[in-house]
């Protein structure tokens, strides 16, 4: 390590550049009005802060009725997927400086799920699709006394899809899902993939049959929106393609 005197972060922090950014937020509260509308908030903020920090500033210091979900604040709990400047992202993982903050920053609920209040949508259909793909390990026969063995290569085979945090950013970015709520959606397929390609699992065939359904993987039109939206960097479209291929070859 070079002898550190002042690093990048500190150099930037030394000149604390607060800016005023406009957050244009999609508001909706059926207790008050039937229609949704846009509301602008001017927020003084360090552009190195997160969109979640801005939402908190609004809620805590300007308008306590602004409603959204959040918990961990660093991109691992999956609570705060929203449409920011027209793209699905986690508010806690999106820095304001990366959003061209000279223009108004738009924040809307994710699409394809019923909006319940402001940025909160009904997650039930999303979780139902997940539960429908048998998202758990199935194995038969005698269990070993110790752990089952799995080679590092076999473990690596499904590593990418174990990263999913069920935030719904992918599913709610999919045009097929917007138009047809029956489609399982990318997140459910990702979670099926996670087990289909796990060498320890024995229910791959069953899961493939579920996904062979008319609302299954064949609906995917490979638009790559899901891959772009995934805050965990999962190659979602590739995973879906692998499931399609497994359905054709029945090899996985």
């Amino acid at each position, binding site marked *: *390590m070079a*002898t*550190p005197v*002042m*690093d*990048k*972060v*500190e150099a*930037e922090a*030394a000149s604390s550049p607060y800016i005023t950014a406009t957050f244009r937020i999609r508001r909706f*509260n*059926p*207790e008050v009005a039937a229609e949704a509308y846009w509301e602008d908030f001017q927020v003084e903020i360090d552009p*190195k802060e997160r969109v979640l920090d801005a939402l908190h500033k609004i*809620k*805590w210091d300007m*308008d*306590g*009725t602004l*409603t*959204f*979900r*959040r*918990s*961990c*604040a*660093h*991109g*691992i*709990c*999956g*609570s705060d997927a929203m449409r920011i400047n027209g793209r699905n992202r986690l508010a806690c*993982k999106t*820095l304001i400086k990366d959003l061209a903050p000279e223009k108004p920053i738009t924040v809307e609920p994710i699409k394809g799920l019923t909006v*319940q*209040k402001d940025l*909160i949508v009904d*997650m039930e259909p999303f*979780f139902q699709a997940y539960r429908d793909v048998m*998202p*758990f*390990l199935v*194995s038969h026969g005698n*269990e070993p006394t110790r*752990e*089952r*063995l*799995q*080679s*590092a290569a076999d*473990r690596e085979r499904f*590593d990418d899809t*174990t*990263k999913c*945090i*069920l935030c719904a950013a992918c599913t709610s970015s999919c045009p097929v899902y917007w138009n047809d709520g029956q489609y399982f959606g990318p997140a459910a397929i990702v979670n099926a993939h996670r*087990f289909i390609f*796990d060498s*320890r*699992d024995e229910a791959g065939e069953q899961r493939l049959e579920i996904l062979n359904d008319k609302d299954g993987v064949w609906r995917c039109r490979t638009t790559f929106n899901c891959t772009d939206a995934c805050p965990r960097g999962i190659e979602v479209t590739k995973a879906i393609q692998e499931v399609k291929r497994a359905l054709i070859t029945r090899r996985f």
Partner: protein
Amino acid sequence: MQIHKYDTVIVGAGGAGMRAAIEATKRSRTAVLTKLYPTRSHTGAAQGGMAAALANVEEDNWEWHTFDTIKGGDYLVDQDAAEILAKEAIDAVLDLEKMGLPFNRTPQGRIDQRRFGGHSRNHGEAPVRRACYAADRTGHMILQTLYQNCVKEGVEFFNEFYVLDQLIIEADGVKRSAGVVAYELATGEIHVFQAKAVVYASGGNGKFFKVTSNAHTLTGDGQASVFRRGLPLEDMEFFQFHPTGIWRMGILLTEGARGEGGILRNKDGERFMEKYAPVMKDLASRDVVSRAIYTEIREGRGCGPEGDHVYLDLTHLPPEQLDAKLPDITEFARTYLGIEPYTDPIPIQPTAHYAMGGIPTNVRGEVLADNTTVVPGLYAAGEVACVSVHGANRLGTNSLLDINVFGRRAGVAAAEYAATADHVELPEDPAAFVVGEVERLRDAAGKERVAELRRELQETMDKNVMVFRTEQTIKEAVEKLAELRARYRNVSIQDKGRRFNTDLLEAIELGNLLDLAEVMAISALARKESRGGHYREDYPNRDDVNFMRHTMAYREVGDDGTETVRLDYKPVVQTRYQPMERKY
């Protein structure tokens, strides 16, 4: 108001709650109430690993693990409980593997293990590889695996239900649990859950600190609910400050980073831990490392223009190793600091991390009403509870272990109790307290704002009861907390609606944090010694003669309605290990 009747009700769907639910659902009619969707729970944030002496990569055994746990906890650990933790660790890990958890593997295909702070071979000889892990996503994998198995077992969840009150019936001097009262986020409706057995698994309370690795939702609701009903809280002065939080933000960078070879350096590039812990160095226990960092900072060897942090240096580790073993934390550094950990050191500072104290339980997870009496039908497990396996300082990887071992035990015990017990009759008007609080806050017109009080709370806690404490700083905190609690009575909220009223719930959560902060400060003031995470500059030594005992804090309400915190003490269970000076 709706009334539900179950055999077993579990409060919380993190690791402890879901591990309990998997057992309880097989044995009794069970409901899990959780304020977050299960997979949003903060167990998912855990990174580094879960301890178990599997001996997959080198010699190890559960007795060494027991000793390390007791020593790590600065001898405030109940030794019978630590022995159970270390012994059952092996099955706990194997159970998770059988449930499908994708652990990293050794070249032979076994569960891989790595080093972690305070875990040693043969009673402190050298670091040992005991932490089972899945990259730096171990908590995520545990949470997902347990949720997957809850889906498999058909566990019944009530998502986004906030438990706000514990129902206790006292008859013939015996306190019994009758159930809980919950608030449904979506509708604002109040639900009473009558249950033969209630298990608290509602997690920690770190949000009263500003720089913390804890989620916004870790507000100690469970601890506050039982405390308000006259049950004690144990060892609340012991809070762990993890050495490596991202500077100013508090986001955690796992100790696994040092387990993989990462080094802490001061502004001169010096590996300063060599001075403080010659054997374990960067892998000494967390309280030791956090104090060392602040000592470097105080003595002018901190980094940056304000000299207020030090570096975690990973630059000597091969990028492939960082990618394979520490992908998430290196991404945090890139995302939140714009730093490339391959080439640049990461600025860090200690971050408030883990509550060692909590609701006192025995090793079956039964909640205690005093030093010895259990509350029939009431259980607790996980970070909300104090068994106590962590004593004055928890070892890294022992909490993911705790939630699995004691989550399972509490789930089994609760369901077995429910199989033989009857429902306790509900009190008259069971929801009165919650309805009263909700209506008071909705109607309040006072001038105080929740966010402002919370900021002041967090500032006073960071300033006065963090890594270094003195009589003076703690007293300052106690006074400030009294002021904040008085001002809290004049809090008003802006959202008066019923649907998804998070404004209201943040106000309630703040009330819980204020209650618990006061318990912590008062417990800390009375403990005139230094032990584990509780370091008093005015009493820098451990005092086994006067303080080798657990603090038990009770809420007392005077005839005129004034509330005070009364302290009592409980002996530590010692079996085999005599207290020794702690050196790393």
